[in-house]
């Protein structure tokens, strides 16, 4: 239980925000930031803990969004069931891509390329296939009721996405503390050594991809319910692939709260850019790209990793006696 107390504290603080802040602009900002944090947590499971850098997490986001929207609008499925089906299809897609790529031993550059290609193939298919509404996209009919997963108040949407983020945090912490998590991190550190020690590498990576796909798909499902519209450029666009990997990298790759912190920072930067230079197309992404390069350059472990390091350095400076031992121990 102790392992979960920081999560409970963070969630409790975030949960009271709508009670204090009533501005729709701020709530909207936070809802989108939390949605991105959820997508980023999905990326973090596979990329941060497993070391498999995906450049195409849009594949999962878009599949979640489309499955939710299409099931509701074309097959009359209940919105909550559609949401669950969206998450399940993200998991299934993760399993499929994982089986395909890890079985053939693709890693590093190749893996990034393959994930990017899958997202791009799905985008092209979605932009011509009739079932997705092709170029027009799919619109979810406005029906404000709990049954249809649509709410008048932004605060309710806020709590829904916060709850989803909470679940993702708990799942991540449980993975961190589990044997599976240890295998996953072993694969990240040295795949061949992990295999030599008896870890079933491709199976561990595939399992991580299933969880990762489900989380990012959940973010896509939420997108569809919140904005009530999906098209191929939104669902499978590069923007979400970039944001899903940018948030954990900025916040702290392979850390529990990295994606959440990163999402708040990334989104704030985007809004700030719009305030300063006006709402021009491409501007926010210029900044995201530059921030990505800058973070890798100056703080490759992200904000949390950088803070932890700075803290350690400070402690060492305060107690010179132990610093030597620390250095030697580190070797």
């Amino acid at each position, binding site marked *: 239980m102790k392992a979960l107390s920081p999560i409970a504290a963070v969630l409790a603080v975030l949960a009271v925000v709508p009670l204090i802040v009533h501005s729709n602009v701020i709530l909207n900002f936070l809802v989108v930031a939390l949605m991105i944090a959820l997508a980023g947590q999905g990326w973090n499971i596979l990329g941060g803990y497993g070391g498999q850098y995906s450049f195409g997490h849009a594949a999962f986001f878009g599949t979640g969004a489309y499955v939710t929207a299409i099931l509701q609008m074309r097959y009359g499925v209940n919105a909550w069931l559609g949401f669950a089906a969206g998450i399940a299809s993200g998991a299934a897609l993760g399993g499929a891509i994982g089986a395909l790529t890890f079985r053939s*031993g693709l890693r590093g550059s190749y893996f990034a390329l393959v994930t990017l290609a899958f997202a791009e193939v799905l985008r092209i298919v979605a932009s011509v296939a009739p079932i997705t509404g092709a170029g027009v996209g799919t619109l979810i009919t406005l029906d404000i009721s709990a049954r249809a997963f649509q709410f008048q108040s932004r605060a309710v949407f806020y709590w829904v996405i916060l709850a989803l983020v909470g679940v993702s945090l708990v799942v991540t912490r449980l993975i961190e503390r589990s044997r599976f998590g240890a295998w996953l991190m072993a694969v990240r550190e040295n795949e061949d050594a992990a295999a030599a020690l008896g870890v079933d590498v491709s199976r561990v990576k595939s399992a991580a991809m299933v969880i990762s796909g489900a989380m990012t798909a959940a973010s896509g499902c939420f997108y569809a319910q919140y904005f009530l519209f999906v098209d191929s450029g939104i669902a499978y666009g590069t923007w979400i692939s970039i944001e899903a990997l940018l948030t954990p990298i900025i916040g702290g790759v392979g850390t529990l709260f990295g994606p959440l912190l990163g999402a708040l920072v990334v989104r704030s930067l985007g809004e700030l850019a719009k305030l300063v230079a006006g709402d021009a*197309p491409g501007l926010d992404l210029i900044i995201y790209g530059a921030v990505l390069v800058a973070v890798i350059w100056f703080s490759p472990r992200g904000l949390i990793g950088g803070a932890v390091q700075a803290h350690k350095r400070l402690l060492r400076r305060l107690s010179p006696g132990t610093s030597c031992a620390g250095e030697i121990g580190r070797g």
Partner: protein
Amino acid sequence: MLSPVILVPAILNGLLTGAIYALVALGLTLIYGVLHIINFAHGALLSAALFAAFFAYRVLGLDPYVAVFLNAPLFFALGYALQRFIIGPASRGDDRNMLLVTLGIAVVIENALLYAFHADTRTINVGYAFETINFGIAFLAVPRVVGFIAVFLVAFALWLIMTFTDTGRAIRAVAREKLGAQLAGIDVAHIYAITFGIGTACVAVAACLLIPTYYVNPHVGNAFVLVAFTIVVLGGMGSVPGAVIGAFLIGIVESLSGLFLGESLGQIGIFVIFIVVLLVRPSGLFGERA
């Protein structure tokens, strides 16, 4: 349907398209062969090079075939600087970081183009764009034939550089054994940057050959680069002959599937190849390992 009157021109046109693909893919596979990373900024650099060729014509009045002698050195310098002063220092030799940095650069370039020039599609009008040569069996567009010949000249020049110059030997040494090359006194950071510069210059040449018959917008490079990715996966990552043969194969496949299935599905045919190659032989036709 299978009449040679239709089939032969389609195959020849596929070969001409394949030549341009080969040039883009050559840059990609060269960088992979030496730095062992996929340059995700390749597509954005191609878009930038197309804009450079476009403005060279519009502002300076330079014919694309003249502009190539200005743009290629310019983009060589750009590529050199990117690797030497940004990608290298930022990633500190870590492969994952290198991937992310090239991705970050791609996002910056592509969106800077979008910000500066908006999403409009532009074209230039050169007099010879619609001229054709009658080869007896097929009429072929002049600019595409010029492109085809130019690609072979570039490939030949690259081969000369790689085989007979000290820099070329150093590049091959670094590709083979980085540490050994370093011990032999080769400046690896410099060679990395040279390689990246050559790869980027290839893209600039491809852009000048494309612009007479093609269009430019901030996202145009992506379409080419996804094809180029498929080509290098098909030919074997890092393999130069693989890239050239792969490019011609893909050019023909695109042309034929466009003929039989329609334009929008022509692209899907390429991705089917991509996925099948990954499933059956991820090391490609000429690659050693994935």
